[in-house]
């Protein structure tokens, strides 16, 4: 009997030591994660949606940090303290369930998951009006001034994105510029296969499906460039379906659109009337 008591007592003191190391490291690491790493976590703060996603990433990383540290400390400590000595042939102490530990584990993990569910639902529905994701043809999570949002149709095709502006005579461009400080209503669709519109720094990602109008909202805040990629494997040049968009001031946006209207004037008569989906007519164009 005594042969077991000593290792169990030792284990208990080791557990306290591990807990103490973990506590100190957590107290140091969590503030570092929030204050130092947090501002660099993706996708940044170029839009309201991106900012909400960055906040969620900071929260998740901060919550994960103690868990990762617990595993790392346990792993490292065990490697050093519990490794078998060359001349030690005895068994380790028997392992039994520990009721209070199990209860604490279940309560803490359930609380963390439920809190994240509440946070995520709030971000998705209220603060980020859809969190930059595609909401289908009839979106539920609308920004306050949805009726005044700038409408932009995003058209995926093998292998480029083009953009139509229905409020500006339906002109189409191969570049995307958006005004800062304005709600933008993106109507994402495709005219061949499934694509996915991913404007990384804006925090927008919406599937582009032929014949479907997938609506996503974004509220750009900061001026600068953003990367547009296709996030759905779509054929030979999927990896090249990569463009750069810009968030500009309202005045620059109007200047850009005026220049585009002038440049595209000759081609405008050939574009079909604007519609919320974009399927080729006549059918001959379908190959």
């Amino acid at each position, binding site marked *: 009997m005594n042969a077991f008591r000593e290792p169990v007592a030792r284990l208990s003191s080791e557990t306290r030591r591990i807990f103490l190391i973990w506590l100190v490291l957590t107290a140091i690491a969590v503030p570092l994660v929030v204050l130092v790493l947090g501002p660099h976590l993706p996708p940044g703060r170029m839009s309201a949606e991106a900012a909400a996603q960055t906040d969620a990433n900071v929260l998740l990383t901060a919550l994960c940090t103690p868990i990762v540290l617990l595993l790392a400390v346990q792993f490292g400590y065990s490697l050093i303290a519990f490794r078998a000595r*060359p001349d030690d042939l005895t068994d380790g102490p028997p392992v039994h369930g520990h009721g209070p530990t199990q209860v604490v584990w279940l309560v803490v993990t359930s609380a963390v998951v439920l809190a994240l569910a509440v946070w995520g639902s709030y971000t998705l529905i209220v603060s980020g009006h859809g969190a930059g994701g595609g909401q289908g043809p009839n979106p539920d999570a609308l920004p306050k001034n949805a009726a005044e949002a700038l409408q932009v149709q995003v058209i995926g*095709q093998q292998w480029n994105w083009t953009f139509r502006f229905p409020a500006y005579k339906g002109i189409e461009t191969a570049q995307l510029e958006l005004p800062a400080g304005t709600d933008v209503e993106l109507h994402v669709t495709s005219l*061949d296969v499934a694509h996915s519109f991913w404007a990384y720094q804006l925090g927008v990602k919406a599937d582009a499906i032929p014949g479907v109008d997938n609506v996503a909202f974004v509220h750009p805040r900061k001026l600068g460039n953003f990367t547009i990629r296709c996030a759905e494997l779509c054929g030979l040049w999927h990896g090249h379906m990569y463009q750069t968009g810009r968030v500009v001031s309202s005045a620059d946006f109007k200047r850009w659109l005026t220049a585009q209207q002038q440049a595209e004037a*000759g081609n405008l008569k*050939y574009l079909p009337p604007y519609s919320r989906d974009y399927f080729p007519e006549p059918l001959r164009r379908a*190959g």
Partner: protein
Amino acid sequence: MRSGSTKLVAVLVAVAFSAALIAYYIAGYLSVRPAETTSWSGKRVSLTLQTVASLGIGPHPDWVSYLVKDSSGHWQHSTVLNVPANSLVHVTVLQYDTATGLRNPYWGGPRGIVGLMKVDGKPTPTLDPDLASHTFAIPDLGVSVPLKGVADDAKNQCSVAPCTLAQAHTTISFTFRTGKAGTYRWQCFVPCAAGFILGFGGPMQSVGYMDGYLHVVA
């Protein structure tokens, strides 16, 4: 004892190295930004291509394809093109295929070129998208030029490459500017792959037919 410590150090080094590799990969992925500026040194080169409805050779003789004229004036089946960096590239396309029409009429307007494109010698600011047979597009350089198709009822149409000037064709010429050295893809935006779903399979998905690389060499 020494062996145990060595193993311990090795495991810790391996874990640290793996973590550093993952962090390096993530940081590299997140920090990629497209280039935005180029310069021009004033070199000029010419490129002559032909598009054919059926290649007539190889594993897919009935696929639509491009040929390029080499320095000795012979037609070669290739879609890998080499041009100098920071130069003007004058392209002449002898277009022997009939029109399919653009799925997205937007591509009927030539873009990213210097001056106007010429169709059979006439300066043409834009093309009726229904008349397009193919497009020669280098999206990363902003270049896209619609290639007018031969009329469906044209006489003496070319059935198999290489086609000759005596056969029905349209001639499209344009000039574009290259920037820094690199490899760029080029492609067609017309769903011209007859017999494939929505016209976008087979040759439209294959380098050597309706897709290729433009090597811009320093």
